């Protein structure tokens, strides 16, 4: 694999990772434990492909916009189920989003064997999207598509929104302490949590729509190699900073592309990438602990200095 091929493959792999990484980072910022990005991505991809096939006669620009909008809506709706279950019934979102991941997986299985199956009814996949229904490539002859720019743009927008808007402030306040935000800041915590949940799902759904219209061009069962789970590692490595999500997505994209190449060329099991991702997350947790310990020690030292002065 040439270096440029590796580089472009990394960009392609990182594109959906940026979006699901943003979805997780945003949710975790508000202490919403959405670990259902995988399911939200899958329904987003399904909706985009469904619209792409159903509205194939539309002009290219409108069609692509409709596809992406369908992905956004589907992802938000899917996350909305978990948000509603948390608000109304106090169901832990960790469990509900995980369950919804499995349901989404079977939904895709059903679609590619039922309503969206290719006409010969042999393969469990949809037909390929027409040229007009695909995201344009950035460079002629390369797989890198405009989805990458969209993902980077959304990272910038989210970083700005979190830092410089009133809504962003409320999200951060809820993440820092829901009770304090409610009493001192008069933040309506329930509404913020609900909104964050929907937006998180929308981002993940968009990730799925972009992957389907920019890279795979069809729906099939293995359309996501676990993007939604890698997203957790992506967001944590970025320390939940939307801008850093770009860099950490590229890192994990390169890792996964590299692992696939190693499997092809040297027979190294590709599951190794998952092990490395898990070890990175554990390493980050350990590093966070040593920072916390150092911080409390410094506070204790300061307190002593004040006490003896």
């Amino acid at each position, binding site marked *: 694999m040439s270096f440029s091929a590796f580089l472009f493959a990394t960009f392609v792999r990182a594109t959906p990772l940026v979006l699901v990484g943003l979805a997780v980072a945003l949710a975790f910022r508000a202490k919403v*434990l959405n*670990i259902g990005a995988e399911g939200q991505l899958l329904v987003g991809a399904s909706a985009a492909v469904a619209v792409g096939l159903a509205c194939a006669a539309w002009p290219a620009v409108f069609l692509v916009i409709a596809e992406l909008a369908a992905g956004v809506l589907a992802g938000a709706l899917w996350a909305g*189920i978990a948000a509603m*279950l948390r608000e*109304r*019934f*106090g*169901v*832990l979102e*960790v*469990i*509900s989003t*995980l*369950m*919804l991941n*499995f*349901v989404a997986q*079977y*939904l895709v*299985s*059903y679609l590619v*064997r*039922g309503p969206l199956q290719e006409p010969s009814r042999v393969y469990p996949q949809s037909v390929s999207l027409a040229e007009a229904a695909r995201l344009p490539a950035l460079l002629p002859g390369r797989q890198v598509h405009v989805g990458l720019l969209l993902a980077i743009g959304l990272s910038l927008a989210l970083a700005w929104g979190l830092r410089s808007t009133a809504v962003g402030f409320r999200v951060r306040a809820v993440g820092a302490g829901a009770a304090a935000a409610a009493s001192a800041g008069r933040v309506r915590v329930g509404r913020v949590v609900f909104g964050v949940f929907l937006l998180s799902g929308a981002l993940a759904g968009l990730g799925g729509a972009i992957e389907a219209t920019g890279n795979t061009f069809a729906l099939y069962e293995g359309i996501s190699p676990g993007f939604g*789970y890698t997203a*957790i*590692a992506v967001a*944590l490595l970025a320390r939940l900073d939307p801008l850093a999500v770009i860099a950490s997505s590229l890192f994990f994209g390169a890792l996964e592309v590299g692992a696939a190449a190693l499997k092809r060329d040297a027979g190294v*099991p590709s*599951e*190794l*990438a*998952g*092990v*490395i*991702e*898990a*070890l990175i*997350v*554990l390493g980050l*947790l*350990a590093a*966070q*602990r040593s920072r*916390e310990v150092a911080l409390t020690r410094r506070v204790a030292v300061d307190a002593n200095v004040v006490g003896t002065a």
Partner: protein
Amino acid sequence: MTDGVVAAFLQASVRTATPLALAALGELVVERSGVINIGLEGVIIAGAFGALGFAGVGGVGAGFVGAAGAGIAIAVVFALFVVNLRSDQIIAGTAISMLGLGVTGTLYSMLYGSAGAALRSPMTAAWPVPVLSDIPLAGPALFNQPPVTYALYALVPLLARWLHRSGAGLALRAVGERPEAAEGAGISSDRVRWWAIVFGGAMGGLSGGTLVLAQVGTFAEGMSAGRGFIAIAIVVLGRWTPLGVASASLLFGAASALTHLSQARGWSLPYELALAFPYLLTLVALAGVRGRSVAPAALGQR
């Protein structure tokens, strides 16, 4: 519907419930100590892998020992992070799931290569209990099962008694409700949580071992298939009591068995909907229990 079909359905329910109940009873103890182990999925797959490795060398008995050992090994990593390093339990648990799935997948392809699919493990047969297994319908369902299911019948009341009638059980519950108060009474909450997580690891491992040694007869990557997550839901559904957890496991076993039944009977619902049914049932059931009121008060806190 004939008696034969109903009997087969009941038997399949208990069979499917067995690995779920094993993992969920372990997780119940972990959660009673105030820790939620989302990494249970990784523990189960590690157990399944351990079972394959050890059963190949020393037979079914060694397989179960290997399964429990492998489950404990990965649970120890989790305990180090959440107890000693005070890491976020959800994130650490997610990493443990990824680690378990990744390590077993990697080792499996390295050790057994592409020929792995044909690899068979020795299995334990069903041991029909004389007389009892002849009772119509319920007999074969409850008493024509592998020994690990019978062990569960004993474990559920024992665990219930241990939780509520023993000093150690009281210490466990105290740590899960009010760790500071427990510390004040001279109980080391760290030590209690360590033992709870190790027990949960052994049970999760045995759950994976049951899949390989009593049901499938081989290992496949990702064969835990979300059972760890379902087991966590079962604990909520069973309201953190052993009997409740056992009943909720049976409910799930029945839901999964219904899938096979609907397929066998040719009912006209999409196969995938039937497969998704246990997960949908979890969502509906969780909405029904309004679980938080009865959850251990310190659950999930660092």
